[in-house]
């Protein structure tokens, strides 16, 4: 029997380890490009599991499926229009409530999802224990705990996905319900859409469109404008949204977000047990010192000066070493070649080809390589965002964001890596 292709999309908040999961799943089988016509990165990979060929798309890390950014529009259009076989919703176990806010929106969009409860080790460190079974029951979809960094749970995650796509395990996704005032209006709009615009409902669930219209979503409103009956529905939704705003005194998306968060909070509370109160860890102490109002700045100065020193001392050393090596190589070539080649060819090789390569390697590379190593260290250690925290406002005054101070500093040495880093 030939097993079919599967299309899986990874979706979730930013900073939940989604890319790590993606790398674990696809290792080096990746193609990174852009979404057609958008400046949003699109990463795709293939993997083989139990005879299946699985195509995985890593959707951008987002907090919501609204239209705040291109990332969000790309994601929800992909989910609604392309309808992947399954969506793995990567959820940060240490920030369940915020992540569930996104999960609820995936459910509203009618997606088939499997929850990857990631970073359970980190959550445990913070004293947070999540009842996986209970969470799975509450959402009506499978929940698989993982630790992406070590790859633990990844196999079960894939097996679970297969049991769902093969129909062995049925999903009973939670129906997201709102309070009476919102629910009444959502259902009214939903009914109007189903009767007046059945064409649209083949792509987007009518209820989802109704919620989005009530939230004054401009992208969905734009889609409706293309239809003959669209105007009528839009006017109706507009009227109901205004009513809702009058009752609550807040913009309708805030009212709806509040309720959605209320539900996320309720579920998170039901399935979470807070164990021993977390002690103040070394990490927290370092965090407090490095972002301290006064102490932070000498630390920043030391960090920047040592970065300079490392790059330039190390760079000079490497540069001199390489230069010495190539000078000898050049002499050796001249001596070796001139015995049997005419002078002009030897010059071409030596002063033309070799000198050009040498210049590139000895001048730029010895500075760029240490720079990238140090930048990676700063990023991985988490110091960069702390430094950015200290520098943010000063950098904003000159029209840059806080993190831009690293390339700015580097620009004093060589503008090439500075431009690279700023880009």
């Amino acid at each position: 029997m030939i097993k079919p292709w599967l299309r899986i999309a990874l979706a979730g908040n930013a900073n939940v380890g989604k890319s790590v999961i993606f790398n674990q799943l696809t290792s080096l089988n990746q193609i990174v490009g852009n979404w057609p016509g958008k400046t949003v990165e699109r990463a795709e990979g293939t993997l083989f599991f139990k005879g299946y060929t699985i195509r995985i798309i890593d959707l951008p890390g987002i907090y919501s499926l609204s239209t705040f950014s291109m990332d969000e529009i790309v994601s929800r259009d992909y989910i609604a229009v392309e309808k992947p076989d399954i969506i793995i919703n990567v959820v940060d176990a240490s920030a369940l409530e915020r992540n569930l806010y996104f999960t609820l929106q995936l459910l509203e969009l009618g997606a088939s999802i499997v929850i990857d409860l990631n970073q359970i080790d980190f959550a445990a460190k913070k004293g947070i224990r999540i009842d996986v079974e209970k969470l799975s029951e509450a959402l009506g979809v499978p929940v698989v705990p993982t630790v992406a960094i070590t790859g633990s749970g990844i196999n079960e995650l894939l097996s679970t996905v297969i049991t769902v796509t093969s129909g062995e395990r049925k999903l009973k996704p939670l129906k997201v319900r709102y309070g009476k005032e919102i629910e009444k209006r959502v259902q009214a709009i939903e009914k109007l859409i189903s009767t007046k615009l059945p064409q649209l409902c083949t792509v987007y669930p009518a209820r989802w469109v109704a919620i989005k219209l009530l939230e004054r979503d401009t992208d969905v409103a734009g889609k409706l404008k293309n239809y003959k009956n669209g105007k009528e529905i839009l006017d109706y939704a507009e009227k109901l949204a205004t009513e809702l705003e009058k009752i609550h005194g807040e913009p309708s998306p805030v009212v709806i977000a509040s309720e959605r968060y209320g539900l996320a909070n309720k579920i998170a509370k039901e399935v979470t047990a807070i164990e021993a109160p977390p002690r103040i860890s070394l990490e927290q102490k370092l965090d407090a010192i490095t972002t301290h109002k006064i102490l932070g700045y000498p630390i920043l100065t030391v960090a920047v000066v040592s970065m300079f020193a490392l790059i330039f001392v190390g760079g000079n050393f490497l540069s001199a070493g390489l230069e010495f090596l190539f000078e000898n190589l050049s002499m050796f070539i001249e001596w070796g070649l001139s015995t049997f080649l005419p002078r002009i060819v030897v010059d071409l090789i030596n002063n033309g080809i070799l000198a050009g390569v040498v210049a590139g390697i000895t001048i730029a590379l010895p500075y760029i390589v240490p720079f990238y190593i140090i930048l990676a260290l700063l990023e991985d250690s988490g110091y960069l965002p702390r430094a950015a925290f200290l520098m943010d406002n000063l950098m904003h005054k000159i029209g840059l964001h806080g993190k831009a101070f690293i390339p700015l500093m580097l620009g004093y040495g060589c503008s090439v890596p500075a431009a690279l880093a700023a880009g």
Partner: protein
Amino acid sequence: MQSGSRGSSKRRNPRGIKGVISLISLREGEKGVMAYAVGGFGLVRRLAEMGLTPSVEVKLLRKGPFHGPVQIEVRGVGLALGYDVASKVFVRPLKAKLDD
């Protein structure tokens, strides 16, 4: 602008609800309950999506120097808001508890 003075004329809460102050007027470590946010439709909506919805509990973790970013904890997650954005969020301060 002085960051320390509560209820200075510039911080006066636009909806005039009693006992409500701007988020940036909270002290580090102090908690508040969100009342509302002012600003454009997009900003208020975005804040709500990040979890800053009315009546949610907010803890101010720290304020960046020189009117830098304001770090808060909301719904169990740390969030850094720009000073200007933070000044548009209004909260009702909670009395400090012993566990803080």
